[in-house]
Every structure is written in C-alpha cells, then in structure tokens.
C-alpha cells in the first residue's frame, strides 16, 4: 500500500507491505542508514527518530502507521559541516566507542533538551533509560549531553544579547 511521509524535510511516497517497520522503510526504502536496528525486542533505542516532534522507536511502528507524519532522523539533525550541538558534544566528550547506539542516544537526548534545556545528571540518565550502550558505561554519554546543553544555552543567551 502507498505511504507518503516527510523525512528530514523531504516528502516521499513509496509502495510498501503493511508489515514494513518504519525503521526498515527509513533504512532500506530511503537509504538513510544512520538510524540503526540494535535489537528485536523494542528495548535498545538505537532506532530512535522523531515523529511529529516526539522521540519514538522506529522499530515499533509500521511505516503505514506513519502515514502523513513528519519525521526527523539523525541525518536531519545536523550536517558534517554544521553539526548539531549534541553531535559536537558526543565528539568532544568521547561519548561513544563503537558508535552503534549513538544516533538513538542523540535523538533521545534532543527530545530531552527540547523540554529540559538544563537537565541534571539524574534527569539525563533517567531520560536515556530506553537507550542501551554496551561500550561506554554511559558516563561520557551523560557528559556529552551536558556539553550540548551548555553550548545550546550559551547560543540562546548570545542570541538574546
């Protein structure tokens, strides 16, 4: 059946089987492989994208359920020449080792910073409870989110001045 949705500002229409998961639609039909699949059980969060502004697990949605939706993936957050503060934060604070969980970590963190611009360490850890990292022990991931929060607050203060 036909699905039309917008991903990173671009509108796509594709003919898909109803059982196509949104994450497979994004990766295989659209070729946007920054969104990862890390488990079969809806637990790991590597597939996190934003659907109409909310962070969701794209492995637990059918592409047909996202009909008409506005989706942002990691590719839509920043560009290699103009990284999002979260992408810079993960770089600066070494918030990854293998990097597999990083797109999901960043997309989940982006939702946190939208509602909570200056989160405590506890709030960051709590918000990322649906994102699994098997390398870092999470410590530098928390520092990366704090780095981004600081940079984004600095930028918004500079804009106010």
């Amino acid at each position, binding site marked *: *059946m036909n699905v039309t949705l917008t991903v990173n500002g671009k509108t796509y229409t594709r003919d898909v*089987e*109803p*059982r*196509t*998961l949104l994450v*497979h639609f994004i990766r295989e039909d659209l070729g946007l492989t920054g969104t990862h699949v890390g488990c*079969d*059980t*809806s*637990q790991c*969060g590597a597939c*996190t994208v934003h659907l109409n502004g*909310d*962070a*969701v*697990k794209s*492995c*637990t*949605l*059918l592409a*047909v*359920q996202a009909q008409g939706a506005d989706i942002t993936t990691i590719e839509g957050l920043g560009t290699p020449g103009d990284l999002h503060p979260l992408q810079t934060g993960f770089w600066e604070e070494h918030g990854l080792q293998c990097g597999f969980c990083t797109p999901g970590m960043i997309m*989940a963190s982006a*939702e*946190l910073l939208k509602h909570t611009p200056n989160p405590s360490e506890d709030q960051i850890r709590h*918000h990322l*409870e*649906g*994102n699994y990292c098997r390398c870092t022990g999470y410590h530098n991931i928390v520092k990366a989110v704090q780095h981004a929060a600081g940079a984004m607050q600095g930028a918004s203060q500079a804009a106010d001045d």
Partner: protein
Amino acid sequence: MYPASFEYHKAESVDQALAALAENPDLKVIAGGHSLLPAMKLRLAQPPALLDIWGIQEMKGITRDGDHWVVGAMTTHADVLRSDLPLFPEVAGWVGDPMVRNRGTIGGSLAHADPSADYPAAALALGVEFVIRGPGGERTVHADDMFQGMFESAVQPGELLTHIRIPATTQASAYEKFRHPASHYAVVGVAVVRHADSSVRAAYTGAAEKAHRLNKLEDAVNGSQAVPTGLVDAGDLLGDRFASAEYRAHLVDVLAARAIERLG
C-alpha cells in the same frame, strides 16, 4: 525483524471501528502498538488483519466530568504522565521508557491486561470504571471485573474500550514497584489509594496471572491495624527465572509497607 504478513485497516471514529470489527472478526485492534508489535516481530502473535485506531480523536485526551476524570483510551502514557490525574501520572512514569511512553496508550495497556503491567494495580486501587462500546451499545465495567486472567480483560471480541473514568476525589495514593531492569515491567508493583471516605483500596501486579486486590492489607489498614506481613500466599503466585513465587510474595509485603507509609 519483520512480522508475518497481515492486512492493514484504519478507523477514524468509534462507529467506524465497531462497524469494521462487526464485519471482520479476524481484525486485531492496534492502538499504540507497543505490546502488539513487539509480539508480532517475534511471531508470538500473527494476526491476519490489523485495525489501527490511533487516529480516533474522540478517544484521546483527559477531561473532567463532575467528580470523575474521563480519560480517552488512546491517551499516551506521556500525556498521562504530564496530567493532573490521581496516581496514574506516577504509574505512567514507570512504564517502559520515554520513547515507549510517547506512543503506548493507557487504554491499549489496560485492555491488553498484561500480568506484569503497571496500570491494572492502579486501576484496581482507584476503583476505575471502564467504558466499553460494542454492537449492543455502551456498557461500564468496574475495575474489580475488568481483569479476568492472563492477557484477558472484560473487553470482548467486537468491542472497544473507549474511555476510563477515574474518581477525582481521592485523598492520597502511592505506587511502589520493583521493576525488571531490562524489560522495565513490574516484577511486583503495589498501588494503594485512600479514597474520599478515608477507606483504603490496594492492589498488586506482576506476581500472579493478573492484578489482584490486596484484601488482607485493606482489612488491616481500614481497621486501623498495623500493616501485616504474609499479605499474599506464594502458592497463589507465579515464579519465573527472574523471581520465584516466594520472592515475589516477599516483595508484595515490602512494597505494600512502603506504599502505605507514603499515604501518611
């Protein structure tokens, strides 16, 4: 992993959904899909056809109707978490993780009646009423009659849970949970509510085939007695590789005492 193939249908209103269900008994209702899709991905469930009710606006949102709150079954856990409802916001904060809460719905969870879900204990303690519509019209089911067995609620084939009604007059409430660290489901959860008439209702989830009232606890607290131990018999509980029935019985005692203490 791909689910098995199925037909996909959508309803935009309760009437449309009921008509579709009457016409095709094979239809399985999908709300937020955060219990059903994981089961379909593992092929534990292979429904031949889905009816997507996410778009039914009349089943979304939270309103006040006199001394009750009325919550649409398609209200997400995230919206419950941010609401002024009694007890349910605290419970919603324990469900899954932020991404799951953005998509999973309170009605979907309650109709699914997972024995380890958090809401059923809260629904029993609050004395929630379930508004169910079917081909014969609308009926209301009290929480005490809603949960009938493992993954079995009072919602019958061809029916739809459309709203829940929550007493807005409660004095105090608490939910204490020992959660499984990976799945985040309740190994045991205990909900307690002091109602407008000062009586206390309590219930547990996660430990048996469905959520149950904690009658021994209620009798003691309502009789102004200390919280007893041995609230549930391990012989009535289920054990698995994560926690034995005996351990779960112990957790019920510990969590019930903590919850009652929080009532003040």
